[in-house]
């Protein structure tokens, strides 16, 4: 079996898996996306001269995977739907969704295959146009098909911004930051404090998002300044500590009193020691201020408002979707420019060899500090958006696992590679937010209708199966395995950047000296 056929079958199986999990119109959406994926792979390697020849060469894999998708989809409607207790599609809808799936699969696959006859630049443009089309049409298609994926995709995109920001710190500058969620929390809480009736301050979202980014960036500087001289693994632990302290702070800043120590107790205590009484007035800056409302969190938080659209509402995800897309586009633009700028090259130089870089006139501390601040800034954006979108923030949302999930995305996608990080973010978050819940429902249905009745004779086994067949319980396992397997098999990530790959893959000729690129 050749490479193209193998890819086609893998893509078809993934699409079939999505169909099985979600049912209904999912097959059409999955078919269209699978068509694009397959066309992208086939088109990239094609060297045929004419469109007809290109399509003819690719027709085999396309037809096989289309057939596979169709078979799985029919299987879903005819067998699986009954087994998991879902009402199967009525015949008319069944024909409709499968027809749309197959037609869009063929159309996109052939279209993208055909682009391979164009020049390289034109092919790239065609792919970008298609991507823009997909991004713009996605929420409308989602709305029309009733799949309701958009809210989850918005979450995935929020985390993608976080991953892009963390990529500056870990990927570009080579500093392992395990407390990245802290900056996310700082961004979200800044938004909450500045635009919630709880504090009587109500600033506009479009202003607050910049303030949140600036505050998060400033905290990046404050944290970075004392800690950056530390070695790589120590730095990681200290940032982890910072990431642990920040939620504790937000949880406990409910009765904040700040008093000047000398006037309030040091001098009175000394004068009392000598038997005199002090006449100093105690300087109190703030007394018993409730800053974060503790576990209850800040609720509600102000929302963005635009002319024609009005205030963004929670039941209509489309404006939010386009807002987050806009933030991502802006972030990607800024990060690309940063990467290619003098500063970006300095980051990579410091990552590769700090000593050599400082000899070339780069100030390593300043360079690393800016990486920290820039990375923190982007999570400030994400935090502000998150606060406004969810409307309520709690300290427990920003715990250590968030930092690690974001790290997972960066590592899965490819350290230092912007496109890779976006892909990693989308894969991890849609696995976490879309597929695990869908798999949970799927398994719950399967258990209830098929497996548990069969186990009725053995109550212990039945209880055990019922307890453990919940994929959401296993999400940490998923992230942990991602990290361990990626580090063991492919440390450079799925879509690596060339420089990072050379650095992270172990060098057999140097058995004892660890590569020191990430150490201060």
């Amino acid at each position, binding site marked *: 079996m050749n490479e193209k056929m193998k890819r086609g079958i893998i893509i078809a199986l993934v699409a079939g898996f999505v169909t099985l999990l979600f049912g209904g119109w999912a097959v059409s959406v999955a078919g269209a996306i699978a068509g694009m994926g397959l066309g992208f792979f086939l088109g990239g390697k094609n060297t045929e001269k004419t469109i007809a020849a290109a399509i003819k060469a690719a027709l085999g894999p396309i037809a096989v995977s289309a057939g596979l998708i169709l078979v799985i989809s029919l299987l879903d409607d005819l067998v699986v739907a009954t087994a998991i207790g879902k009402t199967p599609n009525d015949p008319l809808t069944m024909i409709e969704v499968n027809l749309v799936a197959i037609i869009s699969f063929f159309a996109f696959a052939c279209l993208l295959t055909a682009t391979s006859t164009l020049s390289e630049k034109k092919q790239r443009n065609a792919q970008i146009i298609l991507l823009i089309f997909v991004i713009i049409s996605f929420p409308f298609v989602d709305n029309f098909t009733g799949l309701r994926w958009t809210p989850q995709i918005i979450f995935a995109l929020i985390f993608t911004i976080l991953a892009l920001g963390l990529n500056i710190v870990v990927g570009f500058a*080579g500093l*392992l930051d*395990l407390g990245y969620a802290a900056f996310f929390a700082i961004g979200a809480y800044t938004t909450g404090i500045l635009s919630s009736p709880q504090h009587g301050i109500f600033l506009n979202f479009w202003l607050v998002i910049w303030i949140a980014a600036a505050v998060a960036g400033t905290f990046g500087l404050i944290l970075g300044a004392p*800690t950056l001289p*530390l*070695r*790589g*693994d120590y730095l*990681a*632990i*200290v940032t982890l*500590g*910072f990431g*642990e*302290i920040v939620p*504790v*702070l937000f*949880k*406990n*800043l409910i009765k*904040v*009193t*700040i*008093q*000047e*120590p000398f006037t309030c*107790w040091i001098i009175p*205590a000394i004068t009392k020691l000598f038997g005199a009484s002090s006449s100093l007035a105690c300087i109190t800056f703030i007394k018993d201020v409730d800053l974060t409302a503790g576990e209850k969190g800040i609720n509600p938080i102000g929302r963005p408002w635009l002319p024609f659209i009005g205030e963004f509402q929670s039941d209509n995800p489309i404006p939010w979707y386009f807002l987050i897309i806009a933030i991502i586009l802006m972030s990607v633009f800024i990060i690309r420019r940063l990467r290619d700028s003098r500063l970006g090259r300095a980051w990579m130089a410091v990552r590769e060899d700090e000593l050599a870089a400082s000899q070339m006139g780069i100030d390593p501390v300043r360079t690393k500090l800016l990486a920290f601040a820039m990375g923190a800034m982007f999570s400030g954006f994400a935090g502000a958006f998150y606060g406004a979108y969810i409307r309520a923030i709690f300290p427990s949302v920003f715990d*250590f*696992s968030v930092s*690690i999930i974001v*790290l997972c995305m960066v*590592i899965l996608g490819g350290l230092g590679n912007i496109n890779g990080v976006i892909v990693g973010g989308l894969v991890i978050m849609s696995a976490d937010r879309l597929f695990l819940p869908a798999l949970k429902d799927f398994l719950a249905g399967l258990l209830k209708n098929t497996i548990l009745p069969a186990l009725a004779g053995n109550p*212990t086994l039945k*209880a*055990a199966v019922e*307890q*453990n067949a919940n994929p959401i*319980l*296993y*999400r*940490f*396992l998923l992230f*942990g395995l991602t*990290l*361990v397997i990626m*580090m*063991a098999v492919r*440390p450079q990530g799925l879509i690596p950047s060339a420089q990072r790959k050379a650095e*992270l893959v*172990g*060098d*057999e000729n*140097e058995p004892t000296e*660890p*590569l*020191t*690129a*990430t150490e*201060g």
Partner: protein
Amino acid sequence: MGKANNLKIRNVLITIVVIYIVLLIGPIAGFDIPNIYAQVAANPLQLVQFLIIGLANGAILSIIALGYTMVYGIIELVNFAHGDVYMIGVFTSLTVLSLTGTLDAKDPGRIILGLIFALVISIAVGAGLNAFIERVAYRRLRNSSRLAALISAIGVSFILENIGLIWAGQTWLVPLFGTTGGASQKSFPDLLGKIMAGYGLNVNLLANTGIKLTFNIKDALVLVLAAVMMTGLRLFVQNTKTGKAMRAVAQNRDASKMLGIDIDNVISTTFAIGGGLAGAAGLMAGLYNNTAWWFMGFRVGLESFTAAVLGGIGNITGGMLGGFLIGLLASFSDGYLNARWTHAWVFVILVLVLLFRPSGLLGEHVGEKA
């Protein structure tokens, strides 16, 4: 000379500013000196009580810190999963105690036997698990960057936490877990109290002495066990052939290899010893704190890592010292500041130690050793 003087003045100024800031904003996190003074003055005996609690908790932390410090000493890896090996130790011992019927036993002799059996099993499980982790997740990364190994360790930590979460939901295996699901905290029965009651003794060893302090049997047991294990480890590392090989590999891996030491074997042994200590600490902590929770390894792991760094990472005596110090700090913070802030204060200590004395209290100055 002038430059050195300037630096000194600058350091003094920075220290003064830092102290002032701590005095200014410390009260937010419970560091309120007048308040603490008032508490100590009102009940000085309480200080001794917190000291006892701190020492017992510190003994558990010390034993876990030894695992961090030994592994770091030999391959310079922060074994992030170590705290979770301890958590697995807690669940192993609880499960063994449940399966052997010790939890429901009335006869004190039977309970003692069950506890000894559980201790052996949790040591074995901890040792095997840690050596297995090394083999699967760290060995092939030994020659790549330190970042890669640390990331792999974090991944292992997540996997173990998830195993703990699933384990705590298996009511069919351990009926004690109840029906609240794996995410909730489980209680670890107070078996020591049961033993003492079985023999008709008071749990508080100081009950009949007239001293108004509690020094429970569990405090005594934890301290005695910790002392035995630490002495044993020290003798092992100083006197046995394997112990000498471990020290040799920690000093220079290449030279040890040339002298015919099986590096892989020595590193596996180190991991196994660390894991065995963590497993034992699991049973001790279960008996001492009477809880089992899938997430407990994370916090305790970080506290004992702090202890290892405070004592001087790589230094076994330092690890023990650091453990006791962190235990005391946590106990005083719980008692006089506020339990909610203890976690944050431990981290403040960690950051301060790393910034101002990265070699720790007892560690030799390693400088920027790569």
